[in-house]
């Protein structure tokens, strides 16, 4: 049995299989293809899907639902994500798990609603006030949407952080024949609840990298959640060393746990050339790398990056080409200090980068 489906539907299916039971959406191309199946499917599993009056409401509803203890998700594109940023910062500060699907389209501003693009990596990586790290995970094919959205929800839950699932119009809206039996389903992980041993503090941790045990609003233990600078108890404070400690913890719990969400595909050939890419462009890279017998590295965790790991791969090559569909070379900017001297940024906007275009570039260098 096969299905004929889109990345958007697979994201919805994966999210539900990951245990997401709350979704709030606002229509926007190319993320409506996630909103619609969530509205259709969530009630069937006794979940809640609700249309919001704007993207600020959508993410706010998700934050509230997550605080009550339910896995929550929303989906949007560049313009809607722009509206969500204040609340995204809030979710980082108050350590609330939510998954945000960011289906990229041509920017800036309303840009091109139906034109694919990969322009929002830097935008999403540095989208919070204070520039704290948050995980960005990106599927490199339509079928991978299923597996990686489950990973994204998992990461969000066990690290108590917002996670951005970064994808593109040509992943969410393109349809493909898929064999359901071949979809990979990772183990579903849950946030860790406070067990009742010891004193409950909303933001308690021993090591900076520890994730505080969760307790929901309305639960047995009184909670004190806040988006303002706070101590471990959740009390708003200023000029207190514990407040600064809590802030460092927000960084450390992501960076020190990076191995738990390091997703990539490295295909090594006997070649001097490495192609690096992500998202929808990966499929062109796979096609041409096979034909031209070159190595490739597809990054599926796009932020934060494990630099020493990347460096150990990059060191093996004489020429490295970073291929992506945007105007500035977003990934190239993030990793250029690791690339060595012979590094190239191949970019384009307006349409997918085809295998032929990468082939021509390979032949020109």
């Amino acid at each position, binding site marked *: 049995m096969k299905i004929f489906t889109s990345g958007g539907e697979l994201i919805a299916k994966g999210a539900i299989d990951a245990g997401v039971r709350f979704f709030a959406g606002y229509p926007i191309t190319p993320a409506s293809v996630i909103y619609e199946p969530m509205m259709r499917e969530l009630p069937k599993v*006794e979940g809640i899907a609700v249309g919001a009056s704007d993207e600020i409401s959508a993410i706010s509803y*998700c934050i509230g639902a997550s*605080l009550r203890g*339910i896995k929550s998700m929303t989906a949007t594109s560049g313009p809607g994500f722009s509206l969500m940023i204040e609340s995204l910062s809030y979710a980082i500060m108050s350590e609330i798990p939510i998954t945000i699907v960011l289906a990229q389209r041509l920017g800036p501003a309303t840009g091109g609603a139906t034109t694919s693009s990969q322009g929002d990596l830097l935008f999403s990586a540095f989208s919070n006030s204070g520039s704290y790290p948050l995980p960005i995970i990106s599927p490199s094919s339509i079928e991978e949407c299923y597996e990686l959205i489950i990973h994204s929800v998992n990461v969000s839950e066990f690290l108590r952080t917002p996670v951005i699932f970064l994808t593109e119009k040509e992943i969410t809206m393109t*349809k493909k024949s898929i064999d359901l039996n071949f979809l990979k389903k990772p183990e579903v992980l849950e946030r860790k609840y406070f067990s009742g041993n010891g004193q409950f503090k909303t933001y308690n941790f021993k090591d900076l990298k520890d994730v505080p045990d969760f307790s929901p609003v309305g639960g047995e233990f*009184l909670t004190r959640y806040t*988006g303002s600078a706070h101590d471990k108890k959740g009390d*708003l404070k200023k000029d207190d060393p514990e407040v600064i400690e809590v802030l460092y913890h927000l960084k450390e719990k992501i960076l020190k746990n990076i191995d738990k969400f390091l997703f990539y595909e490295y295909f090594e050939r006997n070649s001097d050339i490495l192609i690096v890419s992500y998202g929808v462009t990966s499929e062109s890279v796979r096609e041409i790398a096979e034909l031209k017998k070159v190595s490739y590295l597809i990054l599926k965790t796009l932020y934060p990056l494990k630099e020493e790991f990347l460096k150990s791969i990059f060191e093996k090559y004489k020429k490295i080409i970073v291929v992506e569909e945007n105007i500035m070379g977003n990934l190239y900017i993030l990793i250029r200090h690791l690339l060595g001297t012979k590094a190239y940024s191949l970019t384009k906007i307006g349409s997918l980068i085809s295998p032929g275009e990468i082939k021509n570039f390979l032949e020109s260098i």
Partner: protein
Amino acid sequence: MKDLFEIIEKPQNFPYCPGCGHTSIDMALARAIFELNLEKKDVLIVSDIGCVGLVDKLFNVHTLHTLHGRSTAIASGVKMVDEVLFDNQLKTIVMIGDGGATIGLLHLVESAKLNVDITVLVHNNFLYGMTGGQHSGLTPKEFKTSTTIRGNPFEALRIIDILKNSGASFYARTFSQDPDLKDIIKEAISHRGFSVIEILELCTGYATRYNDIKGNDLKIILENSGGKIKEKIERESFGLLYKSKFFDKKSEFEFTEIEAERKINLKNPIKIVIAGSAGEGVQLASSLLCISAILGGLNSTQKNDNPVTVGSGFSVSEIIIKDGDIKYTGIEEPDYLIITSMDGLKRVKGFIERSKNIIIDESLTDNKNFIRVPARKYIKLRGGPTYFSLGVLFGKFNPFDFELYEKAILKYGKAKDETLTCFREGLNFGRKL
């Protein structure tokens, strides 16, 4: 609970300025919770930004300090889940100022519309107290603030009128010194659905600095701006409505499922681009082509292109059919390019030189190198030009069994008789070429 001060700090420990209305409102709320005999764990106070947001530390219940204006929306997310997926015991009370109510007005409107079971206390002291006494959307006309030194020239938003007309099922309006305040809050908390109380109060830090005003004047301001109000309307809350409306059937995730009927031997991938006009069936006919390939044990992809409107302009689908895994879903050199309208022709001009075979409506070109067909003659039938042209493709080139396409129409299509007729006419036309 034996003692009121199990749930609230003693007023002498409050952080507010002397005489601030927040003290009266917090105490009225605490008494309301106390008299309703609620468990601490069954109360959530959601605070907004501003002096009103200092409330968290004062209450020994669940507290949630949010963003400016977003308190109502976050509280609504909590309560939607509590009502639908939990035991609906959590009393959720939003503490918001007039500034928060202005910047977050749409959240209030939406939660009133959805009748989410929360209670909102709008602390209306006519200005932004924490940031220096600037005017807000709820500042009365002629009222002086640090940004309306000569008096506010505009009328205040009538927040209760707005929320009443948005569907709030409990709404009230009073002032902070009202002896009834505690009872009104009790009623609001007990109400199942969206309840809101606008409470006029005095910012002793700023309102008194710019205006000749005392606490007793609040009653006069209240009377002059619509008076005291308290109304209740019986209406199903969000959660009850959601459960009764949606939780009625259990079924599997709805995918388009296709069981292969046979295994076609296909040496090379087939790449087809179909370009026409919106509303002429391009995307559905293309999906059916992909489905027919799956019926034949093959793989397929469909990448669509259309302007931001779906009902006008061009509509293009790129279809790849392959025995094996398809990676890149775009097409560089189509084996077949079908063009059924001028919109389509304009959009795919770049493809023409790169296409091996071009099937085009005869009205669009005189070029003898193209296969010119009378596709648009079928415009009155649903998707006519597209299905006819696809028939021509199967009739002339026989890429794989045409019966599979007919089966796809019959099982997954729409207006099946019309589309099947067009496809067969095309098939016959193509066979004669």
